[in-house]
């Protein structure tokens, strides 16, 4: 489905589009650099490797780190990637209004939230669990950030609909189908957090006297789990549509790829209660139901593992390579876009299996809220997602600026250092978690308790891993600046997305009806949550006035 831009599209139009995409990508990468700086300080102070000055507020920095990494870095990258995919796969005359407006609204929301966190008015971590009560402007900022993403989502979906109208009978380009599924899922999921804000904002202003704590928690996780699938879908868009072009391969199967995105659209939302297994007032039947659905959402990831490795192998065989070692050696390991994604995939093997353990109902008692969980989401969002996005930035930014990547050799080393740093940090966190070390604490000393003494060395290894990640992200920043400062224009700005092999079977029509599957996704979300929400509304119980405990 690759469409050459130059010649089809006016050059000025492409330049305008590139500016919007660059704004999203640069904001995203600034967030990860800043977030990593906070991260390394946290790692060292938690391991008590460095003494921190008395004014140092661990939880404030932790809130910033979480918001920057989980909400800002990932979201801006996905909005940028989705716009880039849409603009290039569907070339046409279009207004840049939605892309810019989305970006500006997202930046405004981010700035409002960040200012309040920095001022110490919202040290509530990125989960902002009531009755911890932040400044209303923090909640408003976070809501505005989400609304900004809706503008970008509307732009992606309206282009998808335009393509359908203009090309009846032609399947929507695969990459746009993926981006569309990602944003349809995102609309359904973010409704939860927007409804939560509808309760939190008036309460934070003092207009309502109390808040239903269990309701806010359920609404948060209705959004909180699909949030992680939003990140994964962004990475899958790159894995299916971009990575094969780096080794001369093809999309293994158009239908299987669309099926993967449809399954993610369907099953990302009705799973959130697996974050609430240890909570009172949610009946075990709902917890069991969400265990089943969470196992279901593992299926598209297994399909992806199969399809990506099949594409790898077919490409290697076409070049006459045989056997595992020869196949692996034949890949472009000196290409940072490929190495980023490939190292990310290796980390995702760990992350995927860890996720199944977390989702396993009673087994979650072993790991819930221990630092195992922190290890888990670092080896997922910080592994496959972050590495794929950093690698994709090495591919996208030259395509957007026309400037060749500065020192691709350093970029490959950067992805490698990130991989090892994440491996060390996350394995030691998993290990400490199994030994009972909690997450989200400024330190793990517990007044010299014997049990806690065993956690300390693992926290030091985690901090060392965090230092690798810090070095890696500084290298990324240097490469980004080096690339931006280049004056010579070298790069061919033509973009090709991966295609299916010639002579592939056509995709069944059933797998092309994105919006019909969207309706099914809404139905599934309703079915999964109607019971537990009914229970909560039946007995609202106590309404908490809220407090500031920091």
């Amino acid at each position, binding site marked *: 489905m690759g469409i050459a831009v130059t010649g089809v599209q006016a050059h000025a139009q492409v330049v305008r589009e590139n500016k919007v995409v660059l704004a999203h990508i640069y904001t995203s990468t600034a967030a990860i650099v800043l977030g990593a700086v906070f991260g390394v300080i946290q790692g060292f102070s938690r391991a008590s490797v460095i003494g921190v000055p008395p004014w140092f507020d661990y939880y404030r920095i932790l809130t910033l780190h979480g918001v920057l990494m989980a909400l800002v870095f990932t979201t801006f990258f996905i909005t940028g990637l989705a716009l880039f995919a849409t603009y290039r796969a569907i070339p046409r005359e279009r207004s840049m209004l939605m892309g810019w407006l989305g970006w500006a609204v997202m930046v405004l929301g981010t700035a409002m939230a960040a200012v309040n966190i920095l001022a110490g008015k919202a040290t509530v971590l990125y989960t902002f669990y009531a009755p911890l009560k932040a400044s209303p402007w923090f909640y408003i900022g976070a809501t505005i950030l989400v609304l900004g993403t809706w503008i970008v989502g509307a732009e992606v979906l309206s282009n998808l609909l335009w393509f359908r109208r203009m090309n009846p009978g032609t399947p929507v380009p695969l990459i746009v189908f993926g981006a569309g599924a990602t944003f349809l899922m995102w609309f359904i999921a973010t409704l939860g957090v927007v409804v939560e804000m509808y309760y939190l904002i008036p309460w934070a202003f003092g207009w309502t006297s109390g808040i239903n704590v269990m309701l806010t928690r359920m609404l948060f996780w209705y959004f909180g789990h699909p949030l992680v699938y939003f990140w994964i879908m962004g990475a899958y868009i790159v894995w299916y549509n971009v990575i094969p072009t780096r080794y001369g391969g093809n999309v293994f199967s158009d239908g299987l790829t669309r099926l993967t995105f449809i399954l993610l659209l369907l099953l990302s939302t009705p799973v959130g209660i697996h974050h609430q297994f240890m909570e009172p007032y949610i009946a075990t039947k709902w917890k069991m139901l969400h265990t089943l659905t969470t196992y279901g959402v593992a299926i598209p990831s297994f399909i992806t593992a199969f399809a990506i490795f099949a594409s790898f192998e077919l490409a290697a065989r076409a070049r006459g390579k045989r056997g595992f070692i020869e196949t692996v050696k034949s890949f472009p390991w000196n290409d940072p876009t490929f190495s980023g994604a490939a190292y990310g995939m290796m980390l995702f093997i760990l992350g995927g299996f860890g996720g199944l353990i977390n989702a396993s109902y009673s087994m979650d008692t072993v790991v819930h809220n*221990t630092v195992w969980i922190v290890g888990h989401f670092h080896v997922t969002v910080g592994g496959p997602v972050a590495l794929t996005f950093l690698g994709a930035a090495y591919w996208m930014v030259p395509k957007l600026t026309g400037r060749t990547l500065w020192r691709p050799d350093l970029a490959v080393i950067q992805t490698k250092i990130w991989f090892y740093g994440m491996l060390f940090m996350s394995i030691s966190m998993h290990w400490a978690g199994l030994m*009972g070390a*909690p*997450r989200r604490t400024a330190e793990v000393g517990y007044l010299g308790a014997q049990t806690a003494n065993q956690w300390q060395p693992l926290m030091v290894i985690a901090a060392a891993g965090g230092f690798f990640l810090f070095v890696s992200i500084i290298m990324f920043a240097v490469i980004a600046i080096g690339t931006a400062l280049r004056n010579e224009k070298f790069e061919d700005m033509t973009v090709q997305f991966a295609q299916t092999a010639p002579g592939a079977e056509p995709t069944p029509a059933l797998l092309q009806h994105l919006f019909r599957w969207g309706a099914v996704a809404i139905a599934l979300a309703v079915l999964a949550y109607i019971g537990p929400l009914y229970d909560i509304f039946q007995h609202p119980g*106590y309404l908490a006035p809220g407090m500031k405990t*920091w």
Partner: protein
Amino acid sequence: MLIVFLCIIGVAAFEDNINPPSGLQAIDPTKVVTTPPFDKPGLRKLPDGSYEAYYVAQVFSFNPPVLKVPAGSKVTFYVTSPDVVHGFLVTHTDINMMAVPGWVNTQTHVFRSRGTYLLICHEYCGIGHQNMSATIEVQ
């Protein structure tokens, strides 16, 4: 593989009654200190020889701070919070619960081996969260 895992969890849940803690009892958080049995937190022996332990998790401590339990005893823990959300994790056991204001959460454990167990809050609850701990002495 997924099906095998699900079968194991399912059998454990339905045959051996191994379920995550899901206390369904409501309580008014503003009256925790006057609501029995949380007005006198601590250990209670039941006629069948097992124990109940009532805990209040509050910023930034657990009440009781020390619990003494005879080795081999079966203890059912009950925990609630009068303020924000707290965690309730006893290291080297499968006791792991959320303490949500307005609700009483519960879980049972048999303490087979002697020693000092660390009870910690594992949900961020404010500036002193890292100091929120207690001990359970199994003698």
